[in-house]
C-alpha cells in the first residue's frame, strides 16, 4: 500500500525572506495514521499544511497525495482532502444546520443523503438540539465542533486539522478527540498540528517535530520517548529537541 502523502526535498521561501520557511523537508505519511506535525511558532507547520492542501506553491521538491502530484493534480486532490482551519470558518448569522447544508452542497451532497449526514454528525458531536440556533449564539466549544463537522461532511480520505481543540473546554475536547479516533478507525488519515503535547501524545500514532523548516525527529511517540534518555513525556522530548529559547 502506497503512502497517503509523500514529500521529497521540499523547499519554500517566501518572497523577501532570506531563509526558507521549508528547507529540503522529506516526509512519508502512511495511510490510516494519525500524524502529528509538532513544532514551535514559525517552525513551518502551517506553511507545510498549506502546501499539502494546494493553497501555497513551493519552489523545489515533490509532493504526492494518494498518488496525485501537486500542484498539477490539485483538482483531484481536493476531492480527497478535508480541512479544518484553526479559525471558526463558518457564517455566524446562519444556523449550524444551514452552515453545514451550504458546505455539504458545495461538496456535491444533496437531498436526503446530505440531511442524514448532517444529522448523523450533529448527533455524534452532541449538537442535535442546537442545530436551528444561529452560530453567533453558540459557545466556543460548540462552534469548534461545527467547524470540524464542516470539514468531514464529505468523508475525506485525508483530514488536515490545525489546532482543532484550541480554546475549548474539556468536554468539547473529549468529544472532538473521540470523534477523530473513530474517523481514523474507519480509515481516514489525519494530519494534525497542535501545541498541546499531551493531547498529541494520546492521539497520534506518529509525530514529526519540525523546526526551522526541517524535520528534526519523527516516529511513534512512545518509541521516541523511550529512545531519548531522561525523557518521560512528549513535551520533555519536544523541549530537548527544539530548545527552550522563545520563538516569536
Amino acid at each position, binding site marked *: 500500500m502506497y503512502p497517503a502523502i509523500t514529500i521529497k526535498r521540499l523547499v519554500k521561501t*517566501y*518572497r523577501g525572506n532570506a531563509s526558507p520557511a521549508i528547507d529540503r523537508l522529506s516526509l512519508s505519511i502512511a495511510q490510516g495514521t494519525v500524524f502529528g506535525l509538532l513544532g514551535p511558532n514559525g517552525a513551518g507547520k502551517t506553511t507545510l499544511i498549506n502546501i499539502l*492542501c*494546494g*493553497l*501555497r*506553491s513551493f519552489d523545489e521538491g515533490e509532493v504526492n497525495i494518494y498518488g496525485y502530484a501537486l500542484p498539477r493534480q490539485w*483538482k483531484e486532490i*481536493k*476531492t480527497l*482532502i478535508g*480541512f479544518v*482551519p*484553526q*479559525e*471558526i*470558518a*463558518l*457564517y455566524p*448569522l*446562519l444556523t449550524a444546520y444551514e452552515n453545514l447544508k451550504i*458546505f455539504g452542497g*458545495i*461538496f*456535491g451532497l444533496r437531498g436526503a443523503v446530505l440531511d442524514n449526514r448532517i444529522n448523523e454528525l450533529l448527533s455524534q458531536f452532541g449538537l442535535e438540539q442546537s442545530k436551528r440556533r*444561529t452560530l453567533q449564539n453558540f459557545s466556543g466549544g460548540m462552534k469548534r465542533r461545527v467547524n470540524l463537522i*464542516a*470539514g468531514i461532511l464529505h468523508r475525506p480520505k485525508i483530514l488536515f486539522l490545525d489546532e482543532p481543540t484550541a480554546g475549548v473546554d474539556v468536554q468539547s475536547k473529549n468529544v472532538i478527540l473521540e470523534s477523530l479516533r473513530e474517523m481514523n478507525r474507519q480509515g481516514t488519515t489525519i494530519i494534525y498540528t497542535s501545541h498541546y503535547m499531551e493531547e498529541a501524545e494520546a492521539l497520534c500514532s506518529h509525530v514529526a517535530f519540525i523546526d526551522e523548516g526541517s524535520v528534526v525527529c519523527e516516529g511513534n511517540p512512545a518509541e521516541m520517548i523511550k529512545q531519548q534518555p531522561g525523557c518521560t513525556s512528549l513535551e520533555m522530548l519536544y523541549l530537548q529537541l527544539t530548545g527552550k529559547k522563545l520563538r516569536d
Partner: protein
Amino acid sequence: MLVRDKAGLAMMFLLPVLLVIIMTCLQDSTFHAVHENHIPLLLLNRDTGSLGVAMEKQITQSGIFDVHKSINGQPVTEEQLVTAVAKGDYLVGIMVPEQATVNIRKNVKRYVAGAFNGKALPPVADEVQVAIYLDPAIKSSFRTTLMSSLREYAVRTESDFIFNEIIAEVNHLSPIPITDVHLARNQVLFTEQYASLKERDKIPNSTQHNVPAWSMFAIFFITISLSGNIIKERDDGSYTRLRLMPCPYSFYLFSKIAVYFGVCVLQFTALMLLGVFVFPYLGLPPLDAGVDYFALILTCTSSALAAIGYGVLIGKVAVTHQQAAIFASISVVIMAAIGGIWIPVFVMPHIMQLVSHISPLNWGLEGFYAIFVRGGNWTSVLPESAVSLLFFALCTGAAIWYNKRKRIDL
C-alpha cells in the same frame, strides 16, 4: 445570510431610500425657494415719485418675495435695513434713494430736448443708485439666481418708466402726439422648452435628476459591503475552506457576484418605485421612468456590475477590513464628485469635465439621464453601458489575476 443581517440590509436599502428622499427634497426646495417660495425682503423706498412706486409694485407683484417695509410697526431706516439683513432676518434688503423719479425725469428731459434740438446727446446728469443688500450667509448659486431675477424686474421698471417719460416729453414738444400702443414691449418672445429625443409630456425636474444620481451613488456604496465580506471570509478561514472544496474559483466568485447583483437590482428597483409612487405623497414630482425599459435594465445591469467588479477588486487587493472600508468609501465619494452626482458636469472647469469621463458613476449617470431626461432608448445608453461592462470585466479579471498571483508567488 444577507437576509439575517438586519443592520446590513438597513444600510443597503433604507439608507439609499433616505438619501434619495432627502437630496431630492433639498434640491426641490432650492428650486422652489427661487421660483415659488416667498423670500423675505425688506424694502426701504425713499422715493416719493412714480419710479419708486413702480419698483415697489414690480417687486410685490413678482410673487417670489415676501415684502416688508417696517420693523415692529415702525418704518425701516437704512441702518436698520442693513443690520436686519446682516443678521439674517431678511435674505434681501432694497433701498430706493430719494429723488430717484426726479433725477430720472430730469435726465429724460435733457435727452429728448437735446434730440429735438439736434445737439449731441448730453451725458447722464444724475444716476439713480438702488442699493441691494444680501444676507452674507446666502449661497453664491442662490445669490446669482436672485440677482438675476432682481435685475430683470429693475430693468423692466426702468425701461417702462423711461419709455413713458420719453412719450410724455415728446408729446409736450411735438405737435403730433404719440402713444405706446404700437411700441408695446415684448415684441421679441422667447419660448422655452427642453430638447428631447422623443415626444414627452413631462419636463425635467429635481426628481428626474436626483433619483438616478443618488441611485448610482447607492449602487456604488455596495463596494464597501462586498469588499468587507470578501476580506472577512479570507480572515476567518471560510475562503480557505471554500477554496479546498471541489468547485472552481470562478464558481465562488460568480456566486458572490450574482448575490450582490441581485441586491443592486432590488435596491435600484426600490428607488425607482419610491420615485414613481411615494414621491407624490411627499410633495415631490413623481419620477417619469422613461419609455424604454430595456434601456433602463441595460443601464442598471451595467452600472451594478461595474460597482460589483470594483468591490471584488478592492476586496482582493486590500489587506484589512478597515483598509477596504476606508478606500472604498472615499474612492466612491471622489468618483461621485467628479462624476457629476453633486455638481453637474457642465458647470465644472474644463479639466474636471475631462476627468469626469473616467468615473464609472458618470457613465451610469449619463445613461440614466439619457433615459429619464432626454427620452433616449437603448441605443442611446449603449456607449455608457459598454464602458461600464468593460470596467467590470477589467476589475474582475484583475481580481482573478491578483488572487492567482497571491496563491502561487507568495
